[in-house]
């Protein structure tokens, strides 16, 4: 939907900046300004020394009033630098801020071509011509205001989620804390001691859990699953299914009398299945909420618990799953991690040899409240082992399993060795096989030192295999000591495996429901690894703790608090404003009413588009991030990205290729990486030939096939499409969608006779100025090598095909 303005009414003012000598030292500014005056609809043009200075801005404001300007073109530095400044300037003069267009004649012109002042001046003229052409078609836009529901949902009640919930509740927001399991607490509640201070884990987490339960602003929804999430920033609708406990939450007093009479026991996964729990029970005594649960998979329905419960009548065998709906403004995902159990393939004999256990199992063994009462004993004979071997990096740092480092295993193994030495002293031999020992946080190195002083043997090397002595059930450990460079064999009475921390079982489902991406490792992906570590690409959804990657307790706590602060930036305001450069569907043109299309909905990286059968596609503006991928993909051209409309971009291409198109390179680059890379090329004064004309789009996903075809129709010599590197896309994967689209087009055009290199797709990061300059150099020399005539001939050959391709589309 392009907004059609009456061409007669357009009154454009052009302001050409000298930027001291930065521009004027190369480009003949006076000449350029004179040229600008001759362009259609330009009613005023002036040059000034520093347009961004106060007097420069005042000049724009005065001119707008004096000449009744309704569009403004500023030819100066990169729009990435001052677009915001000038938008504010014209807004102060009463113009809609989106009626501004900038021509980048500094980074992309004077700085990039200092040794070719003549060509640079010509390029500046054309850049202004392109800007004016776009400005002519600019339409006023209003920022979208979305009201905010000031409640939050925290998914996951581990230590990160607990902290996020407590912080938000303390700020005064209502918080729903959703927990899949029966009790909040997460992995931390399973641990015995915490490193490096060796304070009791549940003693420090327990009070926090109770705080959560008592807080008037927090509602714990435990033993429940996330079913559906709809909506967008400030306005999420969340469906949750509460699984039946068969014990009424409001009536259960937590007395535990039912447990005593229950005859049935089953493995307690809270205890890593080392111990048992009753068919009616809580997983551990400190559970919050302290509500018992009947596991109907095991219950034989003798109703002894009903008798024991008596007049409290808390047991209800007819309880059904219950679905509830919540409205929240922000979501914090804190779903944590799982521990890898190497049962499959019996890695290091786990699952095959009785005395090979995992570290989390060891944790439950050494815990005083655990199934063995804190006695480290062997499963085979119930005796205390006299020698224990710890093996690090089981599954992690393994290219065949989980290539990443699981972060906290080195430290908990140190803790376990120290605990063993504290309990049994010289009476126990402790060995640790490691690849590298990573003790990289406050107090951690000292902790490592302490373990060494206590007599723990650290052996650098990989364990190759383990065998079991069938009689004694001892384990023979075969390894290599890489320091000595020789093989080593040890007999141990117990082996403890530090297994990898892996994404939780349900994280794929959570990612699907929330439409948030996961990395190659399966953990949730943050928006930016450095500057937005807590954000997801979906506005209003934040990450905390190990769901984003393995983290220890202090890090998870910090992230929980941080995610709460991020969520509060939304919840504390009555409205959120959204940039209006979103996609808009022309429902008359949309094919989805007639055929099953839905391509836009499929391609949208944010799930912002719904295309119900028989109905035109609908964009939810608050979810749309304005990448324009849908607009490029739409086979009926029914989608327009505001401020980057087809008409505007085609007008820019038109202007760029009006003269000598065969000598030129048309660049279409994404704002965040390739365009910024070109900016850096200028800033770093990497010279490149001045025959490139740049069109800026927000994301390379916006690059429509039509743009390329149109440019070739206009006679372009070369076309460069610049995008972010594969996993750096600021719109999740718009660049990859562009790549698929463009590679298909490349093949088609090559078949029709185009020289392959004439359409180039390049990944250029914002730091790769030199790469950008190099690409332009390469393309220019190729252009020269091909020669004008050949390009002309090729274009002529292509023309009928292109005409057909373009017309077919407009007909559809």
């Amino acid at each position: 939907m392009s907004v059609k303005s009456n061409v007669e009414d357009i009154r454009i003012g052009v302001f050409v900046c000298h930027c001291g000598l930065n521009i004027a030292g190369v480009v003949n500014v006076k000449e350029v300004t004179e040229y600008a005056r001759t362009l259609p609809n330009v009613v005023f043009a002036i040059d000034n020394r520093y347009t961004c200075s106060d007097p420069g801005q005042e000049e724009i404001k005065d001119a707008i009033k004096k000449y009744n300007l309704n569009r403004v073109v500023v030819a100066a530095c990169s729009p990435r630098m001052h677009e915001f400044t000038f938008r504010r300037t014209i807004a102060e003069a009463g113009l809609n801020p989106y009626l501004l267009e900038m021509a980048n004649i500094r980074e992309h012109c004077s700085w990039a071509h200092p040794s070719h002042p003549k060509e640079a001046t010509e390029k500046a003229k054309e850049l202004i011509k392109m800007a004016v052409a776009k400005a002519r078609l600019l339409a006023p836009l209003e920022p979208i205001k979305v009201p905010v529901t000031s409640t939050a949902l925290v998914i996951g009640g581990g230590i990160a989620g607990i902290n996020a919930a407590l912080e938000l509740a303390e700020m005064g927001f209502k918080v729903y804390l959703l927990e899949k399991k029966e009790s909040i607490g997460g992995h931390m509640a399973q641990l015995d001691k915490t490193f490096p201070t060796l304070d009791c884990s549940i003693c420090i987490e327990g009070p926090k859990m109770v705080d959560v339960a008592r807080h008037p602003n927090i509602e714990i929804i435990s033993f429940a699953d996330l079913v559906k999430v709809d909506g967008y920033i400030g306005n999420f609708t969340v469906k949750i299914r509460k699984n039946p406990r068969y014990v009424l939450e409001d009536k259960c007093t937590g007395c535990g009398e039912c447990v005593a009479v229950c005859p049935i026991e089953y493995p307690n996964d809270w205890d890593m299945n080392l111990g048992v729990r009753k068919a009616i029970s809580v997983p551990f005594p400190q559970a919050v909420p302290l509500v018992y649960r009947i596991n109907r998979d095991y219950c034989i329905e003798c109703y002894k618990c009903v008798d024991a419960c008596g007049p409290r009548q808390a047991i209800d065998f007819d309880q059904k799953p219950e679905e509830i709906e919540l409205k929240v403004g922000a979501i914090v995902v804190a779903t944590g991690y799982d521990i890898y159990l190497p049962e499959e393939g019996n890695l290091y004999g786990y699952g095959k040899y009785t005395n090979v256990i995992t570290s989390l199992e060891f944790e439950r063994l050494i815990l005083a409240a655990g199934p063995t009462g804190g006695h480290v004993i062997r499963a085979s004979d119930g005796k205390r082992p006299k020698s224990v071997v710890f093996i690090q990096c089981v599954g992690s740092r393994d290219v065949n399993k989980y290539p990443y480092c699981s972060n906290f295993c080195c430290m908990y193994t140190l803790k376990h060795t120290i605990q063993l030495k504290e309990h049994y002293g010289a009476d126990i031999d402790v060995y640790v096989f490691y690849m590298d020992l990573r003790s990289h946080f406050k107090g951690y190195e000292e902790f490592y030192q302490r373990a060494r002083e206590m007599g723990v043997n650290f052996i650098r090397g990989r364990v190759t295999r383990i065998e079991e002595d069938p009689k004694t059930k001892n384990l023979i450990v075969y390894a290599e000591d890489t320091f000595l460079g020789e093989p080593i064999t040890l007999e141990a009475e117990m082996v403890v495996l530090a297994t990898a921390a892996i994404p939780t079982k349900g994280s794929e489902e959570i990612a699907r429901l929330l439409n948030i991406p996961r990395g190659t490792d399966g953990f949730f992906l943050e928006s930016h690894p450095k500057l937005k570590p807590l954000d997801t690409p979906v506005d209003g959804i934040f990450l905390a703790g190990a769901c984003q990657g393995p983290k220890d307790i202090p890090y998870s706590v910090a992230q929980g608090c941080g995610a709460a602060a991020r969520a509060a930036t939304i919840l504390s305001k009555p409205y959120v404003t959204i940039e209006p450069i979103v996609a808009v569907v022309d429902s008359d043109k949309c094919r989805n009413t007639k055929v099953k299309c839905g391509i836009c909905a499929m391609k949208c990286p944010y799930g912002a588009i719904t295309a119900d059968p028989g109905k035109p596609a609908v964009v939810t503006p608050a979810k749309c991030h304005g990448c324009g991928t849908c607009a490029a993909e739409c086979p009926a051209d029914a989608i327009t990205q505001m401020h980057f409309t087809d008409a505007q971009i085609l007008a820019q291409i038109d202007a760029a290729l009006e003269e000598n198109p065969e000598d030129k390179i048309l660049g279409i680059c994404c704002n965040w990486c390739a365009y910024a890379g070109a900016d850096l090329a200028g800033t770093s004064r990497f010279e490149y030939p001045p025959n490139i004309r740049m069109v800026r789009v927000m994301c390379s996903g916006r690059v429509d096939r039509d743009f390329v075809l149109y440019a070739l129709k206009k006679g372009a010599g070369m076309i460069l499409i610049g995008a972010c590197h594969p996993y750096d896309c600021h719109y999740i994967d718009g660049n990859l969608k562009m790549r698929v689209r463009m590679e298909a087009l490349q093949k088609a055009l090559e078949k029709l006779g185009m020289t392959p290199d004439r359409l180039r797709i390049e990944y250029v990061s914002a730091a790769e100025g030199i790469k950008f300059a190099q690409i332009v150099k390469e393309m220019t020399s190729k252009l020269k090598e091909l020669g004008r005539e050949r390009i002309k001939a090729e274009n002529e050959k292509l023309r009928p095909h292109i005409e057909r391709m373009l017309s077919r589309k407009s007909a559809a």
Partner: protein
Amino acid sequence: MPVKLIKNEDSSSLLLERIMYTKRYTLFLDRNRCVGCELCEIACPKEAIKVIKPSEFKEMEEPPKKITATVSEDKCNFCGICSEICIFGAFKQSVDGKDFIPVLESESFPRIIHEVKIDESKCPPGCRICEEACPLHLINVKFDSERKVIKVDVDSEHCPGCRICEAKCPYNAIHTRKIITGVIKINVDLCPEGCRYCVDACPIPDVLSIADDGKVRVNESFCVYCGACKKACPVNGAIELKRISFYHAPVKSGAWNKALEKLTSTLDMSKELRSKSFLKAYDSVKRLHMGGKTKR
């Protein structure tokens, strides 16, 4: 160490184990004692037990030669109900190596009473009639020649209560009680020509026999109502077996009510419930009355 669920079976036994770090549950089935009846299959609350034909045993080198029970390791929750309900005592449930039936401990299931009372004073020396009569060889008569005392050992745990010994004892020294009461009827019209599956399956001799006319005849006085005949019968409806009651210690348990309903009928189950409530009312009235008396 992950939880190990192990199932080992051969033609003579089945061993189901749930081995955990701190606990070990075992369920053992002695297939020599198992008669292939339906009691455990019906009573199991988790539907973990199937009583199947030899041909239905898959992936076994040497499958059992008769109809017998098998237990699913995924479904079994080691409650011990099968151990108690089996009147032949073929199942044995243990925890950490000790015989232990959890449901009995919590009175979630009644103790099924195997009652064989012998008044040894009536036994004449040298008499071994009962020992020879017992079809399951559970009676052992000992004569202490020095003290001139006769001692009769009865393995009542495995005794289904057929009462043959009582019937055969000419000195009226044995008193047994049937564990299950019921009614059995064979619709001989439905019997296939020459079929004797039920006769062969019945664990108690002479309960079922082929009469001179070639039809199956029932001698109900020794029937234990286990249902092995019904399991073996190839024709649906040829054998009508109706259990009415079980001889058991009193309990109040939903699991027992459910098992009883399935083993007998809704009507019989409700009868037991009614008599229980009558007893309860009778008890309380008595207590009230007695209480009044002592106060005065």
